[in-house]
């Protein structure tokens, strides 16, 4: 069974091609779907087994990262999205996709604000996987992934319970409690700032010429998602 995967595209989303390629390498069957096709009813979320909100700068990130894409989903597609999640199908939000999921309130009370030094930053970071129900990170331990964002600083309300399956080992952006990713209680919805789709091959690792990169963690993450859906009734 092939896992039909909807990789959402919208004006300003720009990581959709490599995200779709990562899904394909992981054994899924990706389709890049423009938001307007969903809004016009020409595609239905319900026809897919996995939803990925790819990175980028949706609508220029004006009014805050992911704000307008989140508002569009909230006012036009929220019921479909909630039904999708309630049916247990996984949703992955990468970078801008994480910002969208956070704005929609699907990950608890978390917000993403400008990095502490107010600078966009592109670098590889070491990460730590926490014990959690997150289906995407099963079997993963310490890993390297690249980040590339200007608004990745997680602000989490301290009194709130949120689920943090992924933390930075060296905090690059001032995130509360080194948070790099947040998931829902059941572990089926994950938002993360690092870009797993940029590490699905050894040759993407920054030190591959130094003999590193033999276990592309991003590929494992996507495989986990595809296999999870395959295992569902």
């Amino acid at each position: 069974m092939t896992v039909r995967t909807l990789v959402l595209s919208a004006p300003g989303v720009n990581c959709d091609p490599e995200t779709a390629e990562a899904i394909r390498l992981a054994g899924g069957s990706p389709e890049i779907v423009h938001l307007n096709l969903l809004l016009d009813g020409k595609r239905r979320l319900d026809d897919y087994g996995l939803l990925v909100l790819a990175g980028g700068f949706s609508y220029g990130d004006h009014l805050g990262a992911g704000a307008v894409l989140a508002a569009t989903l909230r006012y036009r597609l929220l019921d479909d999205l909630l039904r999708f999640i309630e049916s247990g199908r996984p949703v992955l939000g990468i970078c801008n996709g994480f910002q969208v999921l956070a704005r929609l309130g699907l990950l608890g009370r978390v917000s993403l604000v400008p990095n502490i030094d107010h600078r966009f930053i592109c670098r590889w970071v070491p990460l730590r996987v926490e014990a959690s129900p997150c289906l995407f990170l099963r079997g993963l331990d310490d890993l390297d992934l690249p980040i590339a964002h200007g608004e990745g600083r997680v602000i989490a309300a301290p009194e709130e319970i949120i689920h943090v399956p992924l933390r930075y080992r060296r905090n690059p952006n001032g995130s509360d409690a080194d948070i790099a990713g947040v998931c829902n209680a059941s572990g089926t919805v994950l938002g993360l700032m690092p870009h797993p789709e940029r590490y699905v091959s050894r040759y993407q690792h920054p030190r591959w010429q130094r003999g590193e990169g033999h276990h592309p963690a991003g590929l494992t993450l996507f495989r986990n998602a595809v296999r999870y859906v395959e295992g569902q009734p």
Partner: protein
Amino acid sequence: MQQTAEDQQIGADLCVEIRPHWPQSLAADDLTRLSLDLAGISRLIDIMLPPDADRADLLRALPVLTDPLVEEWTVSDSVPGSPLVSLDVFPHPGVTDREGETAARALSLASPQLEGVSCRAGKRYHFAGAVPDAVRPSVERLVGNPLIHRFIWSDVVAAQPPAEQGQRIPTQTIPLPEREDELMRMSREHGLALDLAEMQAIATHFAALGRRPTDVELQSIAQTWSEHCSHKTFKADIEMAVSGRRETIHGLLSGYIMAPTAALAKPWVRSAFTDNAGVIAFDDEHDLAFKVETHNHPSALEPFGGAHTGVGGVIRDVLAVSAEPIANTDVLCFGLPETPEAAVPDGIHHPAVMCREVVHGIADYGNNMGIPTVGGAILFHPGYLSNPLVYCGTLGIAPRDSHPTSPELGDAVVVLGGRTGRDGLHGATMSSGTLDRAAVEGTVVQIGDPIVEKTLRDVLPHLRDERLYHAITDCGAGGLCSAVGEMGQRIGVEVFLDRVPLKYPGLSAWEVWLSEAQERIVLAVPRVALPRLQALCRLYDVEATVIGTFRDGGRLLLRDGAETVGDLAMSFLHAPPRRTLAASWEPPAAVPYKAGTPDDATTALLSLLRHPSIASKEEVIRRYDHEVGGGTIVKPLAGDAGPSDGAVLKPLPYSRRGVAVAHGINPLYGEIDPHAMALLAVDEALRNIVAVGGDPDYTALLDNFCWGDVSDSAELGRLVRAAQGCRDAALAYGVPFISGKDSLYNSSTHGATVVSIPGTLLISAVSVVPDVRRAVSMDLKQAGNVIYLLGLSADELGGSHYLWTQGNSGGRVPRVRPAETVPLLRRLAAAMCDGLVRSCHDLSEGGLAVAAAEMAIAGRLGLRLDLDRMPAADPLAAEALLFAESSGRFLVEVAPEDAARFESLLGDVPHAAVGAVTADPRLMIERAGAPVLDLPIAAAAAAWRRL
């Protein structure tokens, strides 16, 4: 913003202030330097409600503009009565306001009653204490630019903003005077930037027609004949006097840049000098397109906006050859960062501010587009203080034979993308004149919207693959006039200017025709394809408008409603009078090398590593997303953030074939010998290509000349010498040029003197990497490995960075040795294909010592080298061996077990094992058994990172 009940009914003007309430760290270093304390920054959104909406609708919808978790908002009808001083910064009316447009979109999404709402977005800076009047202009310059922003201090009664629209002036006919001085005055006053012969040609043409030109026609001619659009200097006949001996050169472009490409006849060159970008074959099914542009004048005026739209423009060049962009490159030249504030001329941004804002502009556009910025350089030199250089490049890939170039009779003229406003009027004619005049015309400033361009980038491959257009071009300098005029050159075209979608009303016909509003593409679309094209554009949120028709007759017909505002013969419009220019060149007398009191080698190396042109650019590179797309295999930073020689990308998921991009540039040589500068820039670009795994026999070049005031014959003479150097280099190294651009008149007037930039030639190179798994990085890999030096060292300290940092003078500029270097490049490339090279770095600024230090820093390892083993052309002093920038040289790391094979592959090209990689992180260089340079890598790294 006083508001009454009456106002509310007709649509009230409200201001929403949105303040973050998370622990904010303010990036306010510059304000702190002015001894000001910033209490906070908030977002402002001025809202003009549509007639049917009321305040309650707005209040319900407002949360969509904020993140309630981290922001609080207040609605005010007037400036808040806070005791603190605050400064509001809004874009001027008419200036693109992306945030405001998005706010309007979000509000109407949240509440259908708000459809038609309009918003202006700004920022409010709250100060904790008083802000003295004297520092306010400095504050304004730090937080905005008076050319694009208006500033409102809370304790000053603000003047009413100017009306949103300027006055629309009906098209006029313009009498052409007969007297020469009056013709020239007209050229100046109308901003035409034409010379007397050109003005006379226009007068003669219209005298023969028996009528006066319209303003639209006059501006069209000026635009088409501008330096930017017609490259009249590079096409001119030049009377060149070399030491009194005269020769006539019939066009620099055809004679020195295009001729070698024809002579080399490389089968993989697909298109050179005919289109918006140069094109070479990538594999059997794909082509690569590469283009580098400059955006110097706009960046000097508004560094963020200038660099921003520079990137946007060159991306469109690649889109306009039906390719998809896969990488950006940027090479920047600024005045010295430590220039004292008092030494910066009025109206010029300090180099540090300039650099920060240009980098911000490049990062914002490239990152938003999702195109990795993978390569470039930043050079600092006092000569760029008033005239910074901003080179922006884009590389693209396209399926073979997918780019149609011939509009057909009856095709619709379709404009795609952004709307037209008064942005950037006269950018093209500005390129023909020096900066001073342009500075007073605020309209030259352009602000881009990368998301609009991203939607173009999204839809165009679909239009291409469904073959929905017959021709495509971008709207750059010269706007629709240039784009449509060139496209219709062979057939003829009729355009209805009143059908062009506008950002705001009130534009005169000539303004619509010449506007350089960003993010527009023009297509020639067969009528039958229009419905499908419109449907695809709607899907991708792209506005597509039919504004005219290609029709025979060879005329440019411009209509404004029922009125004909222009009727020009294409044959006249596209045949500017050929210029004859005078140039002169005196070969420089050899100046003997003069050492001052040199530092010891270790201290000299530390000074070089700290030199701003050599020092680490990591801070900048990390602002650019250099990995989006997931195809960056050799990244701009290697190992521990070392400086890669070039970048390697893997553009296709299912193929291991790669593409390498790199640059060569060094204006210091040009000050001594522009011909040598060109040869050395080509040598450097090729070295950088080969250092990362590119194929020297499958490399194409772009030339980008940035020169000063070439109305001066000596300045033009230097340009001629550089162009001749390009020809000689292309032929000697066997590498064709496929595209290029020139930016002239980079000069400024100080009192009575005109100061030109150092003539600067950027050579950009693109090459194919047969298998990216063999690509090489520059960081040292393993202690115990052997270090080879390839290429000959010589007594060539002239124009070197060592000479600059030591305050020495004279000396010979490096020579190129293509007879030795070409085989060397080939054999090194072969060794890489065999997997024998562990790391490789070219020797450029700072010579051997800097290259060795960079490799060690990047690899966190040490190096031990012996100068006596270096292959040298002459017996050399240690300082020449350590710091000369002789051409054609590399440091190469090879594992001991591969050394014999590596040496036999190299054969008779100059090479020697000069040392070894050590686990001890020290750079130790010896001569005659005694150390001449000894430096812990940590100290080298600290200097290089300017810690």
